[in-house]
């Protein structure tokens, strides 16, 4: 794989994570437990969508084949998406969504924090903007984990179930592979080695869970494959909604 292709692939991984999670969070709008959360969910979704647009646009530019953000979002099939499995699962109840938000925002925070120093100026700039947004997402998720974990018996039970639901998808976030190895090698690395993020992620998430009176589930078999386009069955249904209208009008401007 050329360095150019590697960079495209890397930008797609980051961009697809953001795009697919934005789509899932959008499902909460007008369905949240209180009005403040309708606002917050939409806000997080908007931030993620903004990140996705910047990253997909950049992937298309580097690729140089004339694909823009919409070509990449609307015309790739399930097997071409590069997001981690975590973001594609259905939102479940508010506890499942909260658990996912904590896991993902804490991961994204550590990632973007380091990606600001990328030798790739565009990725560095995208990360510089995103890290502030993600800091808020992480804080927002943290507050809810505390409230649900240390709220009522029911919320505690649901929050534990939420963690159980998302935990199989945690390991994949930190998987290094040939691509990340190649892009994060050298003195001026372009990418962040995902494995590096595990410890600081663990420290943050562990502290939040402890304060909330929760424990990370253990002995959970890890699910992976998203970076290779081996997704869960959920992604296809999500893409059917996402893409149907756009694909129904090939070449149209919106």
């Amino acid at each position, binding site marked *: 794989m050329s360095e150019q292709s590697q960079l495209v692939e890397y930008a797609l991984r980051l961009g697809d994570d953001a795009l697919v999670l934005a789509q899932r969070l*959008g499902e909460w709008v007008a369905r949240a437990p209180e009005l403040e959360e*309708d606002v917050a969910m939409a806000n997080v979704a908007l931030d993620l969508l903004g990140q996705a647009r910047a990253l997909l646009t950049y992937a298309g530019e580097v690729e140089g084949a004339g694909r823009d953000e919409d070509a990449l979002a609307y015309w790739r099939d399930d097997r071409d998406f590069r997001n981690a499995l975590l973001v594609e699962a259905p939102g479940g109840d508010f506890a499942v969504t909260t658990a996912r938000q904590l896991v993902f925002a804490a991961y994204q925070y550590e990632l973007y924090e380091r990606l600001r120093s990328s030798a790739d100026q565009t990725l560095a700039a995208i990360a510089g903007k995103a890290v502030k947004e993600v800091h808020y997402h992480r804080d927002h998720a943290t507050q809810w984990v505390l409230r*649900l974990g240390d709220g009522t018996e029911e919320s505690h039970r649901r929050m534990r179930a939420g963690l159980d639901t998302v935990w199989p998808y945690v390991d994949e976030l930190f998987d290094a592979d040939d691509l990340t190895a190649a892009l994060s090698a050298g003195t001026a690395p372009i990418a962040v080695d995902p494995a590096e993020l595990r410890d600081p992620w663990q420290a943050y998430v562990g502290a939040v869970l402890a304060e909330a009176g929760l424990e990370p589930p253990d002995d959970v078999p890890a699910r992976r494959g998203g970076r290779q386009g081996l997704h869960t069955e959920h992604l296809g249904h999500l893409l059917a909604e996402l893409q149907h*209208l756009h694909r129904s009008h090939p070449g149209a401007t919106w």
Partner: protein
Amino acid sequence: MAGTDEQEAAFYAIVDSDGRIEPRDAMPEAYRKTLIRQMAQHAHSEIIGMQPEGNWISRAPSLRRKAILLAKVQDEAGHGLYLYAAAETLGVSRDHLLELLHTHQQKYSSIFNYPTLTWADVGAIGWLVDGAAITNQVPLTRCSYGPYARAMVRICKEESFHQRQGFEALLTLTRGSARQKAMAQDALDRWWYPSLAMFGPPDRESTHSDQSMRWGIKRFGNDELRQRFVDMTAPQADVLGLTIPDPDLRWNDERGHYDFTQPDFDELFRVISGDGPCNRQRMEHRVAAHTEGAWVREAAAAYAAKRAKRAEAAA
């Protein structure tokens, strides 16, 4: 108003001089009640209004349009927050107002009982529904109750942004393919009369209007506002290249206004009274979200109470 004549005189002095009544000012009880009902209905409309547009978030045809739509629906939630907060200055809680909504004791704008069937409906709502809302609401930025007037300033600013976005979305369609243009015309055909109906019944049948005018919480009659909306919108339809579904719509030089066909007010009353295409769906969706979220709100309250207790114990 625990009602001395002196207080009443002070109230009317402020209102008559176009001043602002503030939460701690004395006010007639009927004024307070009317305001609460009006602000609550307005707040309810914002949150129910998230549903028809929210219906297209997952399917928006470009990422840019998806972002614009998400931001718009988010603004509506924000407007709901401002308005419930403004109503709370009159001593009524958001929870109580939601309870009144959920038990059909308070209403929301009947326009949101129509379905969004195609993507063009999102544009049409921005252009027509937000356009009508602004026409209704701009005068309220000068209404006599301070918190309401200030909320309306913010809301109107955002809504005129939405209205331009809706217009622009439709313009893109009408400059697009034949299928896109047909989609835009179809949306206008379906949303035109319901939008005209947003101004309420003709003045001659409108109840409470005189009192609200006297109190400075209504500045213009329904018919006048409806005319203003038509006068603003008809030329915009020309720019879009769309035909307003009213064969009698034409400029009247003498009046200096457009002549137009009134909406079907019987339909309006039917929809208000519960018999619109989506009344049931909207309320079921709303109540389900509220009910399914109960355990979350309870958890937040329990957590806050625990924290307060711990803070107290530590003090």
